[in-house]
């Protein structure tokens, strides 16, 4: 799911391999997969515009995240998902106070309108519409210590998933429409002065490619993702970051999900991600881990469905 696991400033997914908004897996009808996750990421270097640097007055900036996420199958082809993280930031050097609080609530509708056989494999087409908005009054105007960017986001994602045997690959592209945000001050400078408390947040596009092994008990996959802000400005020399900076990044990582062999409602998920290039973002590396549980609300099937839910 997409959490501001603070790949510096940006809301980016540090994705677990459970059913999420970013993978090609659907929940069965009337089944709910839900569980807690913990995430940690940190960066010491960041890109000031395109210049990579460290900041002795920040040291290492770390972000911890505790979240609850869930996925419910309305039908096998139509799922709804949610995520709600609590985020805490900290700098190891300097005087800046960290922020902590409940960040943004995310909701998605995931729809798989079409599956087709293709070259002895199965190709699925999936559409995911998302919405997220802050649920506490944190401030985005305190980067890099802010826990989020405050904008309300609408996202539209198109995804193709291909599975052949136990091997699979998923690609998706996302457009993120971001609302303007409001600062606690009534003027601010970007590349010119603005006399308003409102900041125009540029939209963004994201791409995600993942591939690996997927069968009933285990998912193991390599992930590449990219985020590109469509506009915004660069951090000037030795300046502080600002929410409407032109934040771009590319990351690689690895995910797994493992179903407990003797109790298959329960699964463990884990993820590691690292940033390989960026602009106006931190070079973050992080991991997360979660435990998920499947509750089946279907009354008629009592015994034979456990293994098929995930």
């Amino acid at each position, binding site marked *: 799911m997409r959490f501001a696991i603070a790949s510096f400033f940006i809301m980016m997914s540090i994705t677990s391999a459970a059913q999420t908004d970013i993978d090609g897996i659907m929940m069965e009808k009337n089944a709910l997969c839900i569980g807690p996750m913990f995430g940690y990421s940190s960066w010491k270097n960041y890109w000031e515009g395109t210049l990579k640097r460290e900041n002795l*007055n920040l040291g290492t900036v770390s972000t911890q995240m505790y979240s609850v996420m869930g996925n419910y199958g309305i039908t096998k082809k139509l799922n709804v998902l949610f995520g709600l993280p609590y985020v805490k930031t900290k700098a190891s050097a300097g005087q800046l106070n960290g922020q902590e609080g409940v960040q943004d609530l995310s909701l998605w509708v995931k729809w798989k309108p*079409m599956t087709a056989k293709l070259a002895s494999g199965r190709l699925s087409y999936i559409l995911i519409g998302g919405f997220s908005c802050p649920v506490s009054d944190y401030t985005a105007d305190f980067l890099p210590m802010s826990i989020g960017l405050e904008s309300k986001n609408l996202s539209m994602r198109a995804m193709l998933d291909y599975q052949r045997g136990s091997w699979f690959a998923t690609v998706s592209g996302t457009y993120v429409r971001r609302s303007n945000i409001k600062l*606690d001050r009534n003027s601010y400078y970007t590349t010119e002065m603005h006399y308003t408390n409102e900041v125009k947040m540029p939209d963004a596009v994201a791409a995600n490619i993942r591939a690996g092994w997927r069968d009933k008990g285990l998912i193991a996959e390599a992930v590449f993702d990219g985020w590109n802000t469509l506009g915004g400005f660069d951090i*000037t020399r030795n300046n*502080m970051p600002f929410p409407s900076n032109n934040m771009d990044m590319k990351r690689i990582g690895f995910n797994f999900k493992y179903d407990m062999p003797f109790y298959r409602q329960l699964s463990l998920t884990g993820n590691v991600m690292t940033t390989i290039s960026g602009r106006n973002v931190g070079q973050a590396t992080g991991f997360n881990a979660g435990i998920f549980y499947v509750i089946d609300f279907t009354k008629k099937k009592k015994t034979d469905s456990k293994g098929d839910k995930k």
Partner: protein
Amino acid sequence: MKKIFIPIILSTVLLNACNKDLVETNLQYPSLQPASLDINAGTWKPILLTGPTEFPVAAPIATTTPDYIAQVNEIKTWQANLSKEEKNLVNYWSAGAVLRWNEIMRQLVAKHNIPPYQNADGTYPIPNANNPLAYPQFPFANPPYASRAYAYVAAAEYDALVAAWYYKKLYTRLAPYKVDPTIPSLIPQSDLPSYPSEDAVVAGVVGEMMKLLFPGDQDFIQQKIEEHKKARLIAGANVRSDLDAGEALGKLVAQKFVTRARGDRAGAAVGSLAIQTQFEQDCITRNEIPWISQESPKRPGMLMLFGRVKTWLFDSVTMVTTIRPPAPPSTSSQKFKDELEEIRHLSTSLTTEQRRIAHFWADGISTPTPPGHWNQIAAEDFVKQNFSEVRWARNMALLNMAMMDAAIVCWDAKYVYFNPRPPQMNNTIKTVTGLPNFPSYTSGHSTFSAAAATILGHIIPSNATKYMDMAKEASLSRMYAAIHYRSDCEKGLESGNKVGGYAIARAITDGAE
């Protein structure tokens, strides 16, 4: 397939539904229509000029001469073919010359208000006015630097406009739209004589002052000057000879202020490590704990000799004997420990409202600084007062001379007492804005704000309570941010009030009231 595309179309509509365009306060300002022409402003007391005729302005050519008629035709040629951009330019500048140039100043301050990055050996480079575009660019427009820039420009504008008003009344050449009624005026008409042009006077002053204050931004400033003059021509408000005479007068008056600036000791304000060590030793000799930079690598204190810069509203003896605040609570006293504990407690228990206040008044790097913030506050209220340009300049000069003197008074206290900041004394204290790199006592925000609130309350008495409440809030914001003790804030407000009092003393004797 159709059902696949319906959600795509729907979401595209949804994604583009909300308009993101900003409504910016300063672009909503109406055209300036002064409540009074202040036609006798030529008799007001200038700041540096010996009198309004120190720089003579030649008599204008008669409106019946072929030369004048040619100048009127220049306006007509422009007006025959106006683009949307040109109309926007006219509207933008019609809000007022002093106002718009004040905004431009604030933008330049914000652009340059970023501390230089360290050298490889852990020292810090100092911006060089003779090589302003090399890194670190000149200037580092920190709060004292900014207060001085705002003050010089405003004071020079005022003197130049007093002179301009003297000659306007003397020559009484009317605006082109009055001379030739076939010229439509694109802005509200005025009976104020148009020679020399008050707009060009202001542009001339600022253009000249900025060579000193923002030497690396000349292309931007010259472009604004050209746009400003063009806007006046297009509007039918000035002929070229109005503009030329105004700009020339503005430049001459500015020279007088440039000369003062070159000798006001600000050039030496950056100090040196040897000077800083001396302040430190003096503090230790008094059995007090000295301030230490909390930056890494340690950065020399900001403009450590700014307290010795030449003041506007009182002399240096008055400053030391009458205005300098008493010593802060001793770092070994119980009162100091109590005040430190108060900040530690605040920093761990901020309410949402307190945090909002800390951010609203942060005025840190990449902002127009606290003096710029007060210029914004003043400008927004002055717009509603319909002041003439000369009264705008006079009020801005009073405000900004007060704030520059407040900076001098505050910086004097900071380095004389060399008092440590809360996070130095207790490293568990974390701040909600950047920790300023200079000693704690007294609070700059408090001093600036009280000085500004006092003189603004005199200029617009109906707002006096509001301004003082704002100053107190600005002062408290520094405690919420965990970067100042209560004594810093309270004594800062007191000395700011005193400085503001000197500005009022000038205001009631300058002939404008």
